[in-house]
Protein backbone atom coordinates (compact mmCIF):
# COMPACT_ATOMS: atom_id res chain seq x y z
CA UNK A 1 0.00 0.00 0.00
CA UNK A 2 2.71 2.43 0.98
CA UNK A 3 4.29 4.29 -1.84
CA UNK A 4 1.31 4.03 -4.14
CA UNK A 5 0.04 7.49 -4.88
CA UNK A 6 -3.67 7.96 -4.58
CA UNK A 7 -4.98 10.78 -6.63
CA UNK A 8 -8.22 12.50 -5.91
CA UNK A 9 -10.99 10.88 -7.81
CA UNK A 10 -14.04 13.00 -8.25
CA UNK A 11 -15.73 10.44 -10.39
CA UNK A 12 -16.03 8.21 -7.40
CA UNK A 13 -18.44 10.51 -5.68
CA UNK A 14 -20.54 10.92 -8.75
CA UNK A 15 -21.39 7.21 -8.78
CA UNK A 16 -25.06 6.44 -8.99
CA UNK A 17 -26.86 5.82 -5.72
CA UNK A 18 -27.08 2.10 -6.22
CA UNK A 19 -23.38 1.67 -6.73
CA UNK A 20 -22.67 3.83 -3.73
CA UNK A 21 -25.09 1.83 -1.64
CA UNK A 22 -23.55 -1.42 -2.77
CA UNK A 23 -20.13 -0.13 -1.94
CA UNK A 24 -21.31 0.86 1.49
CA UNK A 25 -22.56 -2.61 2.13
CA UNK A 26 -19.21 -4.08 1.31
CA UNK A 27 -17.36 -1.55 3.33
CA UNK A 28 -17.12 -1.59 7.07
CA UNK A 29 -17.52 2.16 6.68
CA UNK A 30 -21.21 2.32 6.34
CA UNK A 31 -22.61 5.22 8.30
CA UNK A 32 -24.83 2.79 10.13
CA UNK A 33 -21.95 0.72 11.43
CA UNK A 34 -19.95 3.79 12.37
CA UNK A 35 -22.78 5.48 14.19
CA UNK A 36 -25.71 3.18 14.85
CA UNK A 37 -28.81 4.96 13.66
CA UNK A 38 -31.21 2.90 15.76
CA UNK A 39 -29.52 3.97 18.93
CA UNK A 40 -29.72 7.57 17.77
CA UNK A 41 -33.47 7.43 17.37
CA UNK A 42 -34.09 5.99 20.79
CA UNK A 43 -31.97 8.69 22.34
CA UNK A 44 -33.73 11.46 20.53
CA UNK A 45 -34.55 14.34 22.80
CA UNK A 46 -32.19 13.85 25.61
CA UNK A 47 -29.33 16.06 25.04
CA UNK A 48 -26.93 15.47 27.83
CA UNK A 49 -26.36 11.78 27.52
CA UNK A 50 -23.10 10.88 25.87
CA UNK A 51 -24.12 9.20 22.64
CA UNK A 52 -20.86 8.19 21.06
CA UNK A 53 -17.34 7.39 22.02
CA UNK A 54 -14.29 8.74 20.37
CA UNK A 55 -12.07 6.44 18.39
CA UNK A 56 -8.34 6.16 18.25
CA UNK A 57 -6.56 7.37 15.13
CA UNK A 58 -3.19 6.01 14.14
CA UNK A 59 -1.07 7.52 11.40
CA UNK A 60 1.64 5.33 9.95
CA UNK A 61 4.30 6.58 7.53
CA UNK A 62 1.96 9.26 6.30
CA UNK A 63 3.16 11.34 3.37
CA UNK A 64 1.19 14.12 1.75
CA UNK A 65 2.00 15.87 -1.50
CA UNK A 66 0.81 18.91 -3.40
CA UNK A 67 1.83 17.80 -6.85
CA UNK A 68 5.60 17.49 -6.47
CA UNK A 69 5.81 19.38 -3.19
CA UNK A 70 6.27 16.97 -0.31
CA UNK A 71 4.35 18.59 2.55
CA UNK A 72 4.09 15.77 5.11
CA UNK A 73 7.10 13.52 5.41
CA UNK A 74 6.58 10.09 6.85
CA UNK A 75 4.64 10.98 9.95
CA UNK A 76 3.64 8.26 12.41
CA UNK A 77 1.44 9.35 15.27
CA UNK A 78 -1.17 7.90 17.64
CA UNK A 79 -4.18 9.91 18.67
CA UNK A 80 -5.69 8.27 21.73
CA UNK A 81 -9.45 7.98 21.90
CA UNK A 82 -11.27 10.68 23.87
CA UNK A 83 -8.19 12.77 24.24
CA UNK A 84 -7.33 16.21 22.97
CA UNK A 85 -4.15 16.32 20.95
CA UNK A 86 -2.68 19.66 19.98
CA UNK A 87 -0.61 20.06 16.83
CA UNK A 88 1.87 22.90 17.20
CA UNK A 89 4.66 24.17 15.01
CA UNK A 90 5.64 27.21 12.98
CA UNK A 91 3.46 28.42 10.17
CA UNK A 92 3.83 26.32 7.02
CA UNK A 93 5.14 23.24 8.79
CA UNK A 94 2.19 21.15 7.61
CA UNK A 95 -0.25 21.13 10.51
CA UNK A 96 -3.26 21.89 8.34
CA UNK A 97 -2.19 19.48 5.66
CA UNK A 98 -1.79 16.72 8.24
CA UNK A 99 -5.24 17.10 9.77
CA UNK A 100 -6.81 17.41 6.34
CA UNK A 101 -5.43 13.97 5.55
CA UNK A 102 -7.36 12.54 8.49
CA UNK A 103 -10.74 13.24 6.91
CA UNK A 104 -9.50 12.90 3.35
CA UNK A 105 -10.02 16.56 2.55
CA UNK A 106 -6.45 16.82 1.32
CA UNK A 107 -7.28 14.94 -1.85
CA UNK A 108 -9.88 17.57 -2.82
CA UNK A 109 -7.06 19.86 -3.88
CA UNK A 110 -6.15 19.25 -7.53
CA UNK A 111 -2.92 17.29 -7.80
CA UNK A 112 -2.78 16.52 -4.09
CA UNK A 113 -2.36 12.96 -2.84
CA UNK A 114 -1.17 10.94 0.11
CA UNK A 115 0.65 7.71 0.83
CA UNK A 116 0.81 5.66 3.99
CA UNK A 117 -2.07 4.70 6.20
CA UNK A 118 -4.45 6.23 8.69
CA UNK A 119 -6.21 3.73 10.88
CA UNK A 120 -9.44 4.62 12.58
CA UNK A 121 -9.57 1.83 15.16
CA UNK A 122 -8.98 -1.15 12.91
CA UNK A 123 -9.93 0.30 9.54
CA UNK A 124 -7.67 2.12 7.11
CA UNK A 125 -9.53 5.21 5.92
CA UNK A 126 -7.46 5.05 2.74
CA UNK A 127 -8.24 1.39 2.22
CA UNK A 128 -10.02 -0.01 -0.77
CA UNK A 129 -13.79 0.13 -0.84
CA UNK A 130 -13.77 2.92 1.68
CA UNK A 131 -16.49 5.46 1.15
CA UNK A 132 -15.06 8.92 1.52
CA UNK A 133 -18.48 10.19 2.62
CA UNK A 134 -18.51 7.73 5.51
CA UNK A 135 -14.99 8.75 6.49
CA UNK A 136 -15.96 12.40 6.61
CA UNK A 137 -19.02 11.64 8.65
CA UNK A 138 -16.88 9.78 11.14
CA UNK A 139 -14.18 12.46 11.16
CA UNK A 140 -15.66 15.95 11.35
CA UNK A 141 -13.81 19.17 10.80
CA UNK A 142 -14.00 22.71 12.16
CA UNK A 143 -12.16 25.36 10.20
CA UNK A 144 -10.08 28.38 11.09
CA UNK A 145 -12.61 30.94 9.93
CA UNK A 146 -16.20 30.29 10.98
CA UNK A 147 -17.95 29.28 7.77
CA UNK A 148 -21.69 28.86 8.31
CA UNK A 149 -23.66 28.48 5.09
CA UNK A 150 -24.75 32.03 4.28
CA UNK A 151 -28.01 31.13 2.60
CA UNK A 152 -29.18 29.02 5.53
CA UNK A 153 -30.84 29.72 8.84
CA UNK A 154 -29.25 28.70 12.14
CA UNK A 155 -31.43 25.60 12.18
CA UNK A 156 -30.65 24.66 8.58
CA UNK A 157 -26.95 25.13 9.16
CA UNK A 158 -26.97 22.52 11.88
CA UNK A 159 -29.24 20.25 9.85
CA UNK A 160 -27.11 20.72 6.73
CA UNK A 161 -24.84 17.78 7.40
CA UNK A 162 -27.81 15.46 7.76
CA UNK A 163 -29.49 16.75 4.63
CA UNK A 164 -26.38 16.98 2.49
CA UNK A 165 -25.29 13.45 3.12
CA UNK A 166 -28.35 11.48 4.10
CA UNK A 167 -30.72 10.08 1.56
CA UNK A 168 -33.08 8.14 3.74
CA UNK A 169 -30.88 8.77 6.69
CA UNK A 170 -31.71 12.48 6.66
CA UNK A 171 -34.94 11.04 7.84
CA UNK A 172 -37.99 12.37 9.54
CA UNK A 173 -38.41 16.01 10.40
CA UNK A 174 -38.95 15.19 14.04
CA UNK A 175 -35.68 13.36 14.19
CA UNK A 176 -33.84 16.28 12.58
CA UNK A 177 -35.36 18.75 15.04
CA UNK A 178 -34.18 16.73 17.99
CA UNK A 179 -30.76 16.33 16.54
CA UNK A 180 -30.41 20.03 15.86
CA UNK A 181 -31.37 20.86 19.42
CA UNK A 182 -29.05 18.26 20.85
CA UNK A 183 -26.18 19.48 18.69
CA UNK A 184 -26.74 23.12 19.58
CA UNK A 185 -26.82 22.16 23.26
CA UNK A 186 -23.70 20.13 22.73
CA UNK A 187 -22.00 23.18 21.27
CA UNK A 188 -23.17 25.35 24.15
CA UNK A 189 -25.20 27.54 21.83
CA UNK A 190 -28.77 26.43 22.44
CA UNK A 191 -29.68 28.99 25.10
CA UNK A 192 -28.36 31.82 22.94
CA UNK A 193 -30.18 30.91 19.74
CA UNK A 194 -33.23 28.84 20.67
CA UNK A 195 -35.60 31.76 19.98
CA UNK A 196 -34.16 32.64 16.61
CA UNK A 197 -33.46 29.34 14.92
CA UNK A 198 -34.91 30.61 11.65
CA UNK A 199 -32.63 33.63 11.45
CA UNK A 200 -29.59 33.49 9.18
CA UNK A 201 -26.51 31.83 10.65
CA UNK A 202 -24.27 34.64 9.46
CA UNK A 203 -26.16 37.05 11.71
CA UNK A 204 -24.43 35.59 14.76
CA UNK A 205 -21.23 36.91 16.30
CA UNK A 206 -17.93 35.34 15.26
CA UNK A 207 -17.68 33.19 18.38
CA UNK A 208 -21.29 32.07 18.04
CA UNK A 209 -20.70 31.28 14.37
CA UNK A 210 -17.77 29.08 15.29
CA UNK A 211 -19.85 27.24 17.87
CA UNK A 212 -22.57 26.94 15.23
CA UNK A 213 -20.00 25.26 12.99
CA UNK A 214 -19.09 22.94 15.85
CA UNK A 215 -22.80 22.13 16.28
CA UNK A 216 -23.03 21.45 12.55
CA UNK A 217 -20.07 19.10 12.84
CA UNK A 218 -21.36 17.15 15.83
CA UNK A 219 -24.85 16.89 14.31
CA UNK A 220 -23.61 14.14 12.02
CA UNK A 221 -22.25 12.35 15.10
CA UNK A 222 -18.61 11.89 14.21
CA UNK A 223 -16.16 10.04 16.40
CA UNK A 224 -13.23 12.30 15.74
CA UNK A 225 -13.26 16.10 15.43
CA UNK A 226 -10.46 17.96 13.69
CA UNK A 227 -10.09 21.63 14.50
CA UNK A 228 -7.76 23.76 12.43
CA UNK A 229 -6.95 26.86 14.50
CA UNK A 230 -10.59 27.18 15.52
CA UNK A 231 -9.99 30.22 17.70
CA UNK A 232 -7.59 32.27 15.67
CA UNK A 233 -10.39 34.46 14.29
CA UNK A 234 -12.06 34.87 17.69
CA UNK A 235 -11.72 37.33 20.55
CA UNK A 236 -10.41 36.11 23.93
CA UNK A 237 -13.84 35.58 25.50
CA UNK A 238 -15.17 33.62 22.53
CA UNK A 239 -11.90 31.68 22.55
CA UNK A 240 -12.41 30.79 26.20
CA UNK A 241 -15.90 29.49 25.46
CA UNK A 242 -14.65 27.30 22.64
CA UNK A 243 -11.86 25.98 24.82
CA UNK A 244 -14.32 25.07 27.56
CA UNK A 245 -16.42 23.39 24.94
CA UNK A 246 -13.47 21.35 23.72
CA UNK A 247 -12.93 20.13 27.25
CA UNK A 248 -16.55 18.94 27.37
CA UNK A 249 -16.50 17.43 23.90
CA UNK A 250 -13.59 15.14 24.60
CA UNK A 251 -15.78 12.90 26.70
CA UNK A 252 -17.50 11.93 23.46
CA UNK A 253 -15.01 12.61 20.72
CA UNK A 254 -11.37 12.26 19.94
CA UNK A 255 -10.13 15.75 19.23
CA UNK A 256 -7.19 16.97 17.18
CA UNK A 257 -6.64 20.70 17.43
CA UNK A 258 -4.18 22.70 15.39
CA UNK A 259 -3.05 25.81 17.16
CA UNK A 260 -0.28 28.34 16.85
CA UNK A 261 -1.05 29.49 20.34
CA UNK A 262 1.04 27.56 22.82
CA UNK A 263 -0.94 28.75 25.82
CA UNK A 264 -4.00 27.30 24.16
CA UNK A 265 -2.28 23.98 23.62
CA UNK A 266 -1.24 23.99 27.26
CA UNK A 267 -4.79 24.78 28.36
CA UNK A 268 -6.76 22.26 26.32
CA UNK A 269 -4.53 19.43 25.19
CA UNK A 270 -3.70 16.17 26.91
CA UNK A 271 -1.06 15.40 24.33
CA UNK A 272 0.94 17.80 22.21
CA UNK A 273 2.76 17.07 18.97
CA UNK A 274 5.40 19.39 17.57
CA UNK A 275 5.96 19.53 13.82
CA UNK A 276 8.67 21.16 11.80
CA UNK A 277 9.00 21.34 8.02
CA UNK A 278 6.58 18.50 7.36
CA UNK A 279 8.09 16.17 9.95
CA UNK A 280 6.91 15.18 13.37
CA UNK A 281 9.63 16.19 15.79
CA UNK A 282 8.19 15.11 19.07
CA UNK A 283 4.98 14.04 20.70
CA UNK A 284 4.16 13.52 24.34
CA UNK A 285 2.04 14.60 27.28
CA UNK A 286 1.45 18.35 27.01
CA UNK A 287 2.98 18.97 30.41
CA UNK A 288 6.24 17.34 29.40
CA UNK A 289 6.45 18.93 25.95
CA UNK A 290 6.29 22.36 27.54
CA UNK A 291 8.50 21.69 30.54
CA UNK A 292 11.15 19.20 29.48
CA UNK A 293 11.00 18.38 25.81
CA UNK A 294 13.50 15.78 24.67
CA UNK A 295 14.32 17.43 21.36
CA UNK A 296 16.24 20.69 21.31
CA UNK A 297 14.15 22.00 18.39
CA UNK A 298 10.99 21.54 20.45
CA UNK A 299 12.63 23.34 23.31
CA UNK A 300 13.62 26.24 21.07
CA UNK A 301 10.09 26.48 19.75
CA UNK A 302 8.20 26.27 23.02
CA UNK A 303 10.59 28.71 24.64
CA UNK A 304 9.91 31.16 21.83
CA UNK A 305 13.31 31.10 20.18
CA UNK A 306 11.69 30.78 16.74
CA UNK A 307 8.33 30.47 15.07
Amino acid sequence: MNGIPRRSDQGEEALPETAAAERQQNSPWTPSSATPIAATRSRAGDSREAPSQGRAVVLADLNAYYGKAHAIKGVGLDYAANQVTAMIGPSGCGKSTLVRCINRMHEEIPGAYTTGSIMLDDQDIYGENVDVVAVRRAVGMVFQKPNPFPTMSIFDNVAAGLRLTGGRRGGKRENIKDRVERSLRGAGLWEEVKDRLSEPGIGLSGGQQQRLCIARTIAVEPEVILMDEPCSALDPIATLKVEELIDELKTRYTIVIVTHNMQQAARVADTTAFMLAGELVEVGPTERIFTKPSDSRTEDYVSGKFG
Partner: protein
Amino acid sequence: MSARSLTLTSARRRRTDVVARWVLAVATVLALVPLVLVVYYVVNKGASAWNTQFFTKDPTGNSTGFGDEGGLKSAILGTIEIVAIASAIAIPIGIAVALWLTEYHRGGWLGNVVRYFIDVMTGVPAIVFGIFVYLLLVIGQPPASAYAGWKGAIALALLMLPIVARSAEVVLLLVPESLREAALALGAPRWKVIMRIVLPAALPGLLTGSLLAIARAAGETAPLLFTIAVTSGTTFDPGQRMNSLPTQIFNNLNSSSDPGLISRAWGGALVLLAMIFVLNIFARLVSRRSPAIR
Protein backbone atom coordinates in the same frame (compact mmCIF):
# COMPACT_ATOMS: atom_id res chain seq x y z
CA MET B 1 8.78 78.34 8.87
CA SER B 2 7.80 74.75 8.66
CA ALA B 3 4.24 75.67 9.52
CA ARG B 4 4.15 78.13 6.59
CA SER B 5 5.42 75.61 4.02
CA LEU B 6 2.89 73.11 5.30
CA THR B 7 0.05 75.51 4.61
CA LEU B 8 1.37 76.23 1.15
CA THR B 9 1.57 72.59 0.17
CA SER B 10 -1.86 71.89 1.45
CA ALA B 11 -3.32 74.86 -0.42
CA ARG B 12 -1.81 73.59 -3.65
CA ARG B 13 -3.05 70.12 -2.95
CA ARG B 14 -6.50 71.43 -2.40
CA ARG B 15 -6.40 73.22 -5.73
CA THR B 16 -5.24 70.09 -7.52
CA ASP B 17 -7.97 68.16 -5.83
CA VAL B 18 -10.62 70.65 -6.95
CA VAL B 19 -9.34 70.58 -10.53
CA ALA B 20 -9.25 66.78 -10.61
CA ARG B 21 -12.76 66.62 -9.28
CA TRP B 22 -14.01 69.00 -11.99
CA VAL B 23 -12.26 67.11 -14.78
CA LEU B 24 -13.90 63.89 -13.68
CA ALA B 25 -17.28 65.55 -13.33
CA VAL B 26 -17.07 66.97 -16.84
CA ALA B 27 -16.03 63.60 -18.27
CA THR B 28 -18.98 61.99 -16.55
CA VAL B 29 -21.39 64.56 -17.92
CA LEU B 30 -19.94 64.15 -21.43
CA ALA B 31 -20.51 60.43 -21.20
CA LEU B 32 -24.03 60.84 -19.91
CA VAL B 33 -25.21 63.40 -22.50
CA PRO B 34 -25.61 61.02 -25.46
CA LEU B 35 -27.18 58.42 -23.20
CA VAL B 36 -29.76 60.86 -21.89
CA LEU B 37 -30.41 62.13 -25.42
CA VAL B 38 -31.10 58.62 -26.71
CA VAL B 39 -33.52 57.88 -23.91
CA TYR B 40 -35.14 61.29 -24.30
CA TYR B 41 -35.69 60.86 -28.03
CA VAL B 42 -36.99 57.31 -27.77
CA VAL B 43 -39.41 58.22 -25.01
CA ASN B 44 -40.47 61.42 -26.67
CA LYS B 45 -41.04 60.00 -30.13
CA GLY B 46 -42.12 56.53 -29.06
CA ALA B 47 -44.76 57.48 -26.54
CA SER B 48 -46.83 59.26 -29.18
CA ALA B 49 -47.07 56.03 -31.18
CA TRP B 50 -48.42 54.09 -28.22
CA ASN B 51 -52.17 53.55 -28.23
CA THR B 52 -54.45 50.59 -27.76
CA GLN B 53 -54.19 49.34 -31.31
CA PHE B 54 -50.40 49.57 -31.12
CA PHE B 55 -50.49 46.70 -28.64
CA THR B 56 -53.49 44.77 -29.94
CA LYS B 57 -53.02 44.69 -33.72
CA ASP B 58 -50.44 43.16 -35.99
CA PRO B 59 -48.40 45.37 -38.33
CA THR B 60 -49.95 46.09 -41.73
CA GLY B 61 -47.12 47.96 -43.35
CA ASN B 62 -49.57 50.60 -44.51
CA SER B 63 -48.42 54.17 -44.81
CA THR B 64 -50.39 56.95 -43.23
CA GLY B 65 -53.74 57.43 -44.90
CA PHE B 66 -53.61 54.10 -46.75
CA GLY B 67 -55.95 51.97 -44.70
CA ASP B 68 -55.44 50.34 -41.31
CA GLU B 69 -52.11 51.29 -39.71
CA GLY B 70 -52.04 48.28 -37.39
CA GLY B 71 -49.80 47.86 -34.36
CA LEU B 72 -46.83 45.83 -33.16
CA LYS B 73 -48.53 42.95 -31.37
CA SER B 74 -46.83 40.17 -33.33
CA ALA B 75 -43.43 41.81 -32.91
CA ILE B 76 -43.77 42.20 -29.14
CA LEU B 77 -45.02 38.65 -28.61
CA GLY B 78 -42.44 37.28 -31.06
CA THR B 79 -39.55 38.96 -29.26
CA ILE B 80 -40.76 37.65 -25.91
CA GLU B 81 -41.11 34.10 -27.21
CA ILE B 82 -37.86 33.98 -29.16
CA VAL B 83 -35.88 35.48 -26.29
CA ALA B 84 -37.56 33.07 -23.87
CA ILE B 85 -36.53 30.09 -26.00
CA ALA B 86 -33.01 31.46 -26.41
CA SER B 87 -32.77 31.94 -22.64
CA ALA B 88 -34.03 28.43 -21.96
CA ILE B 89 -31.15 27.17 -24.07
CA ALA B 90 -28.35 29.56 -23.21
CA ILE B 91 -28.80 30.07 -19.47
CA PRO B 92 -28.66 26.43 -18.32
CA ILE B 93 -25.83 25.60 -20.71
CA GLY B 94 -23.93 28.77 -19.84
CA ILE B 95 -24.20 28.10 -16.12
CA ALA B 96 -23.24 24.47 -16.66
CA VAL B 97 -20.11 25.55 -18.53
CA ALA B 98 -19.26 27.98 -15.73
CA LEU B 99 -19.76 25.23 -13.13
CA TRP B 100 -17.56 22.92 -15.10
CA LEU B 101 -14.86 25.59 -15.15
CA THR B 102 -15.07 26.58 -11.49
CA GLU B 103 -15.94 23.33 -9.76
CA TYR B 104 -14.14 20.75 -11.80
CA HIS B 105 -11.41 22.31 -13.93
CA ARG B 106 -10.18 25.28 -12.04
CA GLY B 107 -6.73 26.16 -13.25
CA GLY B 108 -6.43 23.21 -15.62
CA TRP B 109 -5.20 23.76 -19.19
CA LEU B 110 -8.46 22.46 -20.63
CA GLY B 111 -10.33 24.99 -18.52
CA ASN B 112 -8.08 27.74 -19.85
CA VAL B 113 -8.73 26.69 -23.42
CA VAL B 114 -12.48 26.76 -22.85
CA ARG B 115 -12.27 30.10 -21.08
CA TYR B 116 -10.28 31.58 -23.94
CA PHE B 117 -12.81 30.25 -26.42
CA ILE B 118 -15.64 31.86 -24.45
CA ASP B 119 -13.80 35.18 -24.41
CA VAL B 120 -13.38 35.05 -28.16
CA MET B 121 -17.04 34.18 -28.59
CA THR B 122 -18.02 37.21 -26.52
CA GLY B 123 -16.31 39.42 -29.07
CA VAL B 124 -17.88 37.85 -32.15
CA PRO B 125 -20.24 40.33 -33.85
CA ALA B 126 -23.88 39.37 -33.60
CA ILE B 127 -24.31 39.20 -37.34
CA VAL B 128 -21.84 36.34 -37.51
CA PHE B 129 -24.14 34.19 -35.39
CA GLY B 130 -26.97 35.14 -37.73
CA ILE B 131 -25.01 34.10 -40.80
CA PHE B 132 -23.87 30.92 -39.09
CA VAL B 133 -27.38 29.81 -38.30
CA TYR B 134 -28.53 30.95 -41.74
CA LEU B 135 -25.94 28.81 -43.49
CA LEU B 136 -26.35 25.84 -41.21
CA LEU B 137 -30.05 25.70 -40.46
CA VAL B 138 -31.87 27.95 -42.88
CA ILE B 139 -30.42 27.26 -46.33
CA GLY B 140 -28.44 24.24 -45.33
CA GLN B 141 -31.58 22.28 -44.73
CA PRO B 142 -34.43 21.23 -46.96
CA PRO B 143 -36.91 22.67 -47.54
CA ALA B 144 -34.81 25.55 -48.71
CA SER B 145 -35.27 28.92 -47.04
CA ALA B 146 -36.89 27.40 -44.02
CA TYR B 147 -36.97 30.45 -41.83
CA ALA B 148 -38.30 29.76 -38.38
CA GLY B 149 -38.58 31.34 -34.96
CA TRP B 150 -36.55 28.63 -33.25
CA LYS B 151 -33.63 29.24 -35.58
CA GLY B 152 -33.61 32.86 -34.51
CA ALA B 153 -33.69 31.67 -30.94
CA ILE B 154 -30.62 29.52 -31.60
CA ALA B 155 -28.76 32.48 -33.06
CA LEU B 156 -29.62 34.55 -29.99
CA ALA B 157 -28.70 31.67 -27.69
CA LEU B 158 -25.24 31.52 -29.30
CA LEU B 159 -24.91 35.21 -28.63
CA MET B 160 -26.03 34.87 -25.00
CA LEU B 161 -24.04 31.78 -24.15
CA PRO B 162 -20.62 33.38 -23.65
CA ILE B 163 -22.13 36.29 -21.74
CA VAL B 164 -23.94 33.94 -19.37
CA ALA B 165 -20.98 31.61 -18.99
CA ARG B 166 -18.46 34.36 -18.31
CA SER B 167 -20.61 36.27 -15.84
CA ALA B 168 -21.59 33.03 -14.10
CA GLU B 169 -17.96 32.02 -13.78
CA VAL B 170 -17.07 35.32 -12.13
CA VAL B 171 -19.96 34.95 -9.70
CA LEU B 172 -19.17 31.32 -8.90
CA LEU B 173 -15.57 32.22 -8.19
CA LEU B 174 -16.86 34.70 -5.61
CA VAL B 175 -18.48 31.91 -3.62
CA PRO B 176 -15.94 31.41 -0.84
CA GLU B 177 -13.92 28.21 -1.06
CA SER B 178 -14.53 27.77 2.67
CA LEU B 179 -18.20 27.00 2.00
CA ARG B 180 -17.37 24.22 -0.42
CA GLU B 181 -14.88 22.85 2.08
CA ALA B 182 -17.38 23.00 4.91
CA ALA B 183 -19.89 21.01 2.89
CA LEU B 184 -17.32 18.51 1.63
CA ALA B 185 -16.03 18.01 5.14
CA LEU B 186 -19.55 17.14 6.26
CA GLY B 187 -19.42 14.33 3.73
CA ALA B 188 -21.46 15.87 0.92
CA PRO B 189 -20.62 14.64 -2.57
CA ARG B 190 -19.44 17.26 -5.07
CA TRP B 191 -22.70 17.46 -7.02
CA LYS B 192 -24.67 18.07 -3.85
CA VAL B 193 -22.25 20.76 -2.78
CA ILE B 194 -22.92 22.44 -6.12
CA MET B 195 -26.69 22.10 -5.97
CA ARG B 196 -27.24 22.92 -2.30
CA ILE B 197 -24.42 25.26 -1.41
CA VAL B 198 -22.69 26.83 -4.40
CA LEU B 199 -25.69 27.58 -6.63
CA PRO B 200 -27.89 29.01 -3.86
CA ALA B 201 -25.04 31.22 -2.69
CA ALA B 202 -24.43 32.44 -6.24
CA LEU B 203 -28.07 32.70 -7.27
CA PRO B 204 -28.50 36.49 -7.19
CA GLY B 205 -25.36 37.01 -9.23
CA LEU B 206 -26.31 34.28 -11.68
CA LEU B 207 -29.69 35.95 -12.17
CA THR B 208 -28.13 39.34 -12.75
CA GLY B 209 -25.74 37.98 -15.36
CA SER B 210 -28.50 36.07 -17.10
CA LEU B 211 -30.78 39.09 -17.18
CA LEU B 212 -28.03 41.19 -18.72
CA ALA B 213 -27.59 38.56 -21.43
CA ILE B 214 -31.35 38.57 -22.03
CA ALA B 215 -31.38 42.35 -22.29
CA ARG B 216 -28.56 42.18 -24.78
CA ALA B 217 -30.25 39.53 -26.91
CA ALA B 218 -33.65 41.18 -26.90
CA GLY B 219 -32.41 44.12 -28.90
CA GLU B 220 -30.33 42.26 -31.49
CA THR B 221 -31.48 42.60 -35.08
CA ALA B 222 -28.81 41.00 -37.20
CA PRO B 223 -29.07 37.40 -35.95
CA LEU B 224 -32.82 37.49 -36.51
CA LEU B 225 -32.94 39.01 -40.00
CA PHE B 226 -31.37 35.90 -41.49
CA THR B 227 -33.18 33.37 -39.39
CA ILE B 228 -36.79 34.25 -38.71
CA ALA B 229 -37.30 36.41 -41.83
CA VAL B 230 -39.93 39.08 -41.67
CA THR B 231 -43.60 38.48 -41.21
CA SER B 232 -46.51 40.44 -39.88
CA GLY B 233 -48.88 37.90 -38.39
CA THR B 234 -48.83 36.69 -34.82
CA THR B 235 -47.80 33.09 -34.32
CA PHE B 236 -46.75 31.16 -31.24
CA ASP B 237 -45.36 28.31 -33.30
CA PRO B 238 -41.56 28.58 -33.26
CA GLY B 239 -41.49 26.39 -36.37
CA GLN B 240 -42.95 29.28 -38.35
CA ARG B 241 -41.54 32.57 -39.43
CA MET B 242 -41.96 34.95 -36.55
CA ASN B 243 -41.97 38.65 -36.06
CA SER B 244 -39.81 40.48 -33.54
CA LEU B 245 -39.34 44.02 -32.38
CA PRO B 246 -35.87 44.60 -33.82
CA THR B 247 -36.74 43.18 -37.24
CA GLN B 248 -40.03 45.08 -37.32
CA ILE B 249 -38.27 48.33 -36.48
CA PHE B 250 -35.70 47.56 -39.14
CA ASN B 251 -38.46 46.83 -41.62
CA ASN B 252 -40.42 49.99 -40.86
CA LEU B 253 -37.40 52.17 -41.33
CA ASN B 254 -36.29 50.27 -44.38
CA SER B 255 -39.49 50.29 -46.36
CA SER B 256 -40.43 53.94 -46.59
CA SER B 257 -39.98 57.35 -45.13
CA ASP B 258 -43.62 57.54 -44.15
CA PRO B 259 -43.93 59.37 -40.83
CA GLY B 260 -46.52 56.92 -39.55
CA LEU B 261 -44.24 53.90 -40.06
CA ILE B 262 -41.30 55.75 -38.56
CA SER B 263 -43.37 56.77 -35.59
CA ARG B 264 -44.33 53.15 -35.01
CA ALA B 265 -40.66 52.22 -35.23
CA TRP B 266 -39.98 54.68 -32.41
CA GLY B 267 -42.87 53.12 -30.54
CA GLY B 268 -41.27 49.69 -30.95
CA ALA B 269 -37.93 51.04 -29.78
CA LEU B 270 -39.64 52.37 -26.68
CA VAL B 271 -41.17 48.94 -26.00
CA LEU B 272 -37.69 47.39 -26.21
CA LEU B 273 -36.27 50.06 -23.96
CA ALA B 274 -39.08 49.51 -21.46
CA MET B 275 -38.53 45.74 -21.46
CA ILE B 276 -34.83 46.13 -20.83
CA PHE B 277 -35.47 48.73 -18.15
CA VAL B 278 -37.86 46.39 -16.36
CA LEU B 279 -35.37 43.52 -16.60
CA ASN B 280 -32.63 45.68 -15.13
CA ILE B 281 -34.80 46.84 -12.26
CA PHE B 282 -35.65 43.23 -11.62
CA ALA B 283 -31.99 42.21 -11.67
CA ARG B 284 -31.20 44.97 -9.23
CA LEU B 285 -33.96 44.00 -6.84
CA VAL B 286 -32.85 40.40 -6.91
CA SER B 287 -29.21 41.14 -6.23
CA ARG B 288 -30.07 43.59 -3.48
CA ARG B 289 -32.02 40.95 -1.65
CA SER B 290 -29.02 38.64 -1.71
CA PRO B 291 -27.71 37.58 1.69
CA ALA B 292 -25.10 35.45 0.08
CA ILE B 293 -21.95 37.06 -1.18
CA ARG B 294 -20.53 40.20 0.31
